[in-house]
């Protein structure tokens, strides 16, 4: 009888231990800012958050990284979060139309720009030099689904403006759901050429070649940041937003191949000058892809400009 009671006691003990474990696991740390951000912005935002938490001891930034297409459903259902930085202004305006955005000024709240570039597998085996080459019969072109990824919309806009959209569609061998799919496909040689953001291209320096697009067809895509309507700590959130928009924050974005001084854009978002504002950025991208492949060239601001960090990181490993 005693053993039975003992056994019952042990079960009770185990159950309460489990309960304790649950409660302990669920205890929260210090209050944090919840930041919904496109997964593509991770490398820059993590660096900015490190600067921010060093400046604000006790504060924490929790990033909820995901594909930009997933945000609206999440925010609509959870009605949570302090800051929002999707990978395209389109998503932010969508959220704003639903009343989720507290304050957003399209003139000032642009942290950086994505710039479109052509990428090909290492060595550029099909000798692609300009957008018109995408119409060449038999070329395996990587496209993205415009419904799922902003880059898909931009590819369509670019090829329509170049007057070759119908031929390019025939050449398409993949319709990616997100931009890393395209980067990965070029890295592994699954397609001969595609158009991506410079920020995507810079991730695969050792395995791809980067070809700047002529200014008339060069897309300058705005990367916005805004406070959400449900923001619980607006004071702190504004400080983080200010850091992102500051010279220090923008320099961090620049080091990951975002454009920060991109010059004027036309109504469709294409480069409206002769390309001189982004010319240097394009030059360093091409150089970075060359230097990353050749370990004999030193990695310095003289050889790769602002992309020293990216090239050094990628030299450490094969993949």
């Amino acid at each position, binding site marked *: 009888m005693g053993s*039975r009671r003992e*056994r*019952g006691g042990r*079960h009770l003990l185990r*159950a309460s231990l*489990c309960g304790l*474990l*649950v409660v302990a*696991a*669920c*205890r*929260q740390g210090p209050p944090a800012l*919840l930041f*919904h951000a496109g*997964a*593509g912005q*991770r*490398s820059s935002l*993590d660096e900015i958050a490190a600067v921010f938490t060093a400046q604000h001891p006790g504060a924490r930034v*929790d*990033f*909820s*990284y*995901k594909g930009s297409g*997933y945000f609206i*459903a*999440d925010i609509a*259902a*959870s*009605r*949570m*979060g302090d800051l929002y930085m999707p990978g395209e202004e389109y998503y932010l305006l969508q959220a704003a139309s639903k009343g989720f955005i507290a304050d957003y000024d399209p003139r000032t709240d642009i942290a950086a720009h994505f710039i479109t570039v052509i990428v090909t597998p290492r060595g550029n085996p099909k000798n692609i030099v300009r957008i018109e080459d995408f119409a060449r019969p038999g070329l395996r072109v990587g496209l993205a689904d415009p419904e799922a990824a902003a880059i898909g919309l931009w590819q369509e806009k670019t090829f329509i403006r170049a007057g070759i959209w119908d031929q390019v569609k025939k050449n398409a061998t993949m319709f990616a759901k*997100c931009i*890393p799919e395209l*980067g*990965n496909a070029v*890295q592994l040689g699954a397609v001969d050429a595609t158009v991506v953001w410079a920020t*995507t291209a810079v*991730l*695969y320096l050792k395995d791809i070649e980067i070809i700047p697009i002529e200014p008339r067809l060069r897309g300058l895509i705005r990367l916005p940041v805004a406070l959400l309507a449900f923001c619980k700590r607006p004071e702190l959130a504004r400080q983080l937003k200010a850091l992102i928009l500051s010279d220090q924050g923008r320099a961090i974005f620049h080091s990951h191949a975002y454009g920060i001084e991109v010059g004027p854009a036309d109504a469709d978002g294409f480069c409206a000058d002769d390309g001189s504002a982004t010319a240097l950025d394009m030059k360093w991208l091409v150089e970075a892809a060359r230097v990353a492949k050749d370990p004999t060239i030193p990695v310095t601001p003289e050889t790769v400009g602002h992309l020293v960090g990216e090239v050094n990181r990628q030299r*450490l*490993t*094969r*993949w």
Partner: protein
Amino acid sequence: MVGSTSVLSLSQKSQIKQIAWHGLFGGIGALLLLAAVSLVVVNALFLGWSDFWHYLGRPRTWSSLWITIWTAALATAISLAIGIPAGYALSRRRVPLSGLAHTLIDLPVMVPPAAVGIFLLGVFKSFPAAELSTWLGLQVHHAVPGVVVAQVAVTLAFGIRLIKASFDAVSPRYEAVSRSLGASLPRTFFSVSLPLARNGILASVIVIWARAAAEWEALMLFVGGIQGRTDTLPFAVYLDWNGGILGWSLTNSLFCVVIALGSMYAVRRLGGRGHVY
């Protein structure tokens, strides 16, 4: 003479057919094994030692591993705490509207995990889950508890299924004998039914744990990848792939395989069957 030759050749023919038949099936089996082994070996070679060590030296690899292990373990404990009574009840009791009950329980197995994630968003913003979490002072969305909740939501259903199957395999006659000797219902359950279903339940534990550790779609929608807090291994695989760091994704993927192998081996050592079905 002619007849005996033909008989001999007939038996030879059937023997050849038999060998071919077994060879075909054995060959397909062997190919499958080879594919499973080469999947890991080829990827390990592709990654290379130096990259593997490099990413192994990163603290985030280990934090992801640790998050995966403990959240999946907690999710498994919760799934078992609910799954054992529920599985037993489904196995032993006649459930009213049993067809409907079974369908409802199976629902999360059939519904895509992404949909489960979206439903969870709604649940934790409505009564009573919203009030309960506020009262307890814990945030579920976009926080670590959400990881466990998503894992439980996805794994509970087939946890119950597997545990029910384990109890189905135990003859109710043993329980009847135990009762006739004067043992109470709880004592019969803990001393007879549960120990007899032990191996099946142990096997279920691996499946539940491994599935919880592998979950990421519901996580992506319900929680999001908060680096160092909610990025379990599968989430880290996605985030690193997204960031163009193929090597880190591969390292974490290989870790997932090692975990799966390790847990099966552990269960075998513990006396379970060490395989799932």
